[in-house]
């Protein structure tokens, strides 16, 4: 049974005609935009429109990238910085999912739970990371846990809200169908509401990852010895602008890669999205 399922997926992934014509255009346009920006950047620094401290040339940024990759910068190589940051962001995503999805399910399915938890989430949602960072440090110290916690707080609201709206999007008749089969409340949540909410939860994960990368630099402001945010701040203190830009580019590349990974997971495990 699972064999035939696996066989049928690629056929579904094959785009229909209009998509086939459009897809390369979007990609080409994106590449052209990036290429154009790099060209303008190269031109600007070559013609001396801005001093190298403000705007180092692409070549210097590339050299900085190589330097941190092979010799290291700010006590560690690029790989170590990336590893530390990736670990923090994905650990935060993991723990936030562990807390946020159940919280979302409770808010969506229980009036009492909603009354208690909804205001809490709404309270946390608009807080800027730099504002609660000192509190977290006072309460939880300067260890690895605090950094993960700072990122998790930024990720919580997107996960909770996407879970709630996903459950609400469950078709009423699907829920009724399960109830006619005598589903208990727990079965209803596990077999209908959670699967129905998965597409929305995936969107929430993508937004949460975005928030995570945004918050990363703040979380590495204090007492970090590794991490892309730490690397950028160290470079900024000495006006090593090429290294700052290199760090930004690496973060953006990682964010893009994680977005692509999530989209792939979505296609692989939620093939029904957008169908029927």
């Amino acid at each position, binding site marked *: *049974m699972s*064999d035939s399922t696996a066989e*049928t997926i690629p056929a*579904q992934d094959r785009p229909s005609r209009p998509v086939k014509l459009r897809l390369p255009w979007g990609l080409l346009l994106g590449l052209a935009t990036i290429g154009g920006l790099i060209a303008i950047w190269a031109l600007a620094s070559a013609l001396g429109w801005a001093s190298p401290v403000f705007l180092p040339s692409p070549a210097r940024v590339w050299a900085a990238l190589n330097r941190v990759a092979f010799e290291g910068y700010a006590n560690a190589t690029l790989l170590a910085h990336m590893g530390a940051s990736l670990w923090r962001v994905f650990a935060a995503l993991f723990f936030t999912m562990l807390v946020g999805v159940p919280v979302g399910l409770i808010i969506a399915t229980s009036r009492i739970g909603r009354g208690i938890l909804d205001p809490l989430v709404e309270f946390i949602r608009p807080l800027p990371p730099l504002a609660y960072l000192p509190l977290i440090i006072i309460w939880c110290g300067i260890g690895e846990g605090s950094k993960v916690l700072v990122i998790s707080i930024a990720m919580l609201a997107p996960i909770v809200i996407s879970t709630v709206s996903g459950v609400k999007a469950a078709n009423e008749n699907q829920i*009724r169908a399960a109830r006619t089969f005598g589903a208990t409340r727990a079965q209803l949540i596990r*077999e209908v509401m959670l699967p129905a909410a998965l597409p929305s939860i995936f969107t929430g994960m993508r937004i949460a990852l975005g928030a995570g990368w945004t918050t990363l630099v703040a979380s590495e402001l204090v007492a970090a010895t590794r991490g892309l945010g730490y690397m950028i701040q160290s470079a900024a203190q000495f006006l090593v602008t090429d290294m700052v830009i290199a760090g930004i580019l690496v973060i953006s590349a990682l964010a893009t890669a994680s977005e692509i990974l999530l989209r792939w997971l979505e296609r692989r495990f939620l093939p029904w999205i957008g*169908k029927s």
Partner: protein
Amino acid sequence: MSVLSLSHVSLSYGQPSGTAALPVLKDVTLSLSRGDFVSVIGRSGSGKTSLMNLAAGFLRPTAGQVSIDGRPVTGPGPDRAVVFQDDALFPWRSVVDNVALPLKLAGKPRAEREATARHWLQAVDLAGQEGKHIWQLSGGQRQRVGIARALASGPDFLLMDEPLGALDAMTRDRMHELLLKLWDESHTGALLITHSVEEALFLSTSVVVLAPGPGRISFQEDYDYGRRFIRGEDPRALKSEPGFIAARERLLAAIYEKEAA
């Protein structure tokens, strides 16, 4: 012998602003035994879906009682399976897993679930489609999965709200014959909500006309075309009998009759 009965049932939907409640059904009395095939027909908005939701236990009547063998119905339950107009299948489960879900919820072992699900898929002519995804099926195939899923739960009553509404005429004709076969095999009591007079007439042992504003039963008559089809008579011959045509005219007249008072 189970009997699902609605006695003197009235229903009003509460208005959100707290203004006077809107009566939708008034003093409806109807009973459905196992082995019956009752169709409810009526104009749009006459309260057919509301009636089915009462029978399924999704709604509670404002007055009167819905009961099974004298026990009041307090909510949906596995003795009454529902086939929805919009199939209401679960796209995250394969075809066979959709049909097996009622058995999974009932705690049946995996092997039994699988066997029962395959049996009912075969009964609705979907053998060989077990591993497919729901969205890979046509509308008619989806409705058949919905019917197989309903029957897999082993219900006493099969409640269907315009299950064939979205299908083309040819597919509908085939589905009629399939429905009769399944009804006969499963020994359920079937309640069918439909817009089609011919469908109601051909399938049912009894057709109920619901008049609108507020919905009440204005006409009811018993037929045996479905049973005769099961005994082997030709469906097209049945549908062109003078008795069939006359009955169709009586039903149409009942549906379009001027609202009294």
